[in-house]
């Protein structure tokens, strides 16, 4: 169950970058997830105000 960004919903507020435990999200435009680093804690999903960051089933 990886994390996925739905770009059409993303407002580029970058809260996901601030809360990522694994330093796995980067980007000064739309955030880019490094799936190698991501440990699937889903903090980015919780802190995303527009539901752009989702848990991929």
């Amino acid at each position, binding site marked *: 169950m990886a994390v996925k960004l739905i770009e059409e919903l993303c*407002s*580029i*507020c970058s809260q996901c970058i601030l809360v990522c435990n694994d330093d796995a999200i980067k980007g*000064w435009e739309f955030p880019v997830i490094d799936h190698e680093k991501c440990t699937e804690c*889903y903090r980015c999903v*919780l*802190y995303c*105000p527009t539901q752009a960051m989702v848990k991929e089933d």
Partner: protein
Amino acid sequence: MDRAKFDVVIIGAGAGGLSAGAFLSRAGYKVLVTEQLPFVGGRGSSLEYKGFQVSTGVGAWLLPLKDIVFDPLGAPFDSLIRIPEVNTPYYINGKCYDIPYRGKLRAALKIAAGEKEADNVMRALKKAFTWELPSDKISLRDWLLQYTKSEEAIGVVNANWQVTETGAGGTLELFKKMGSINFGFAINGNRSMWEVIADVIRANGGEVWTSARATKILIEDEAVKGVLVTKNLLKKGEAQVQIDAQAVVSDAGPYTTLKLGGEENFCQSHIKDVKETLKTFPWLAFQVSSSAPILPSSGIGFVSGSRIINWLLSPTLLCPELAPKGKHITYVGAWIPANPPWNFSKYLEMAIQDVREIAPDYDKYVEEILHVAYFIRQDWPMYRSYDGYSLSSTKTSVINLYNIGDAVFPRGYSGQPGAAQSGKDVAEDIQKRIKPSAR
């Protein structure tokens, strides 16, 4: 499904939602504030990152919040906010001027564009303020162009507020009212201020649920009946709860209110008002860390004559608590175009160039870009609407369903004070119309 009953449910723990919740719970109403994020304060909050308190949106605290929210609730304010001595330095064509507070706009205009253009703009403003404000049929820029052709003069006004997209009337009304407004910084970060107001709600018997997302506003026979909420998002106890309520106050934004309630339940005129009035206001906000201050002053510095940036501020000169020991944070804001196509990397590059010119020590001291945000979507913009394009009423077409927050605040208001005022106004209206249940 679990079921609970409250007098009023408030969707969203932003400036508006928390203010409404605090005033209502103090008046004896059983209040639930439901917030989808794990923290309160929304775009007026802060998150800790690498030891820095990084703002989620707002740069500084507009002091009217004291009179609108904190004082009437008996909540501490002065002990939690520090106010810079020089409140609004101007950076004009790369140079910093500490202009005396009284008459600062004229002085800035004079430096940027000369005495004659300053007189032209000030005369036009005086007419607008003392005779009649224009409408919002033209932008503030088009209104100004009738009195000055000087881009330098317009640039000074644009540093204070976006002039291209805002309505002339709404923005001038804001300037008229906000002319004497000062700023401060929250010593322990923005979030701590809103936690104080959340505590007022709890102390008066209300509840504030974080990580709790409203998924549906329940409407029956033209009136609101409650809200479906998923609480404990992504946690072990995640569950859907039906909350029955006499009134629902949405601080989620008018578009989201329509979505949650279902458009079929609203009057066509209200749907049209929302869709045709609001204009999403994005902007670029970036925050950098440095090993020494890169600005000479701790107030909000308005910038004119730049490529893109409009203001910058350095809260850690006054509030070192916001950064690890010996480190500083500088917050820079720039208006970006209202609509796509956007060129984000170009905006950031231009903004950094601008800061380098204002702060010659940028390359020497800046260590890292901490945060870059653009707020491009209507669900989470910097502002839900440009000034002059707010809804005229907090009431939706559904009985006892209100909107609050930016996009519905009274004319002459903006930012967090406006959002808070709309929450307070709705709390008063509810007190006139609905009785609290016996507790």
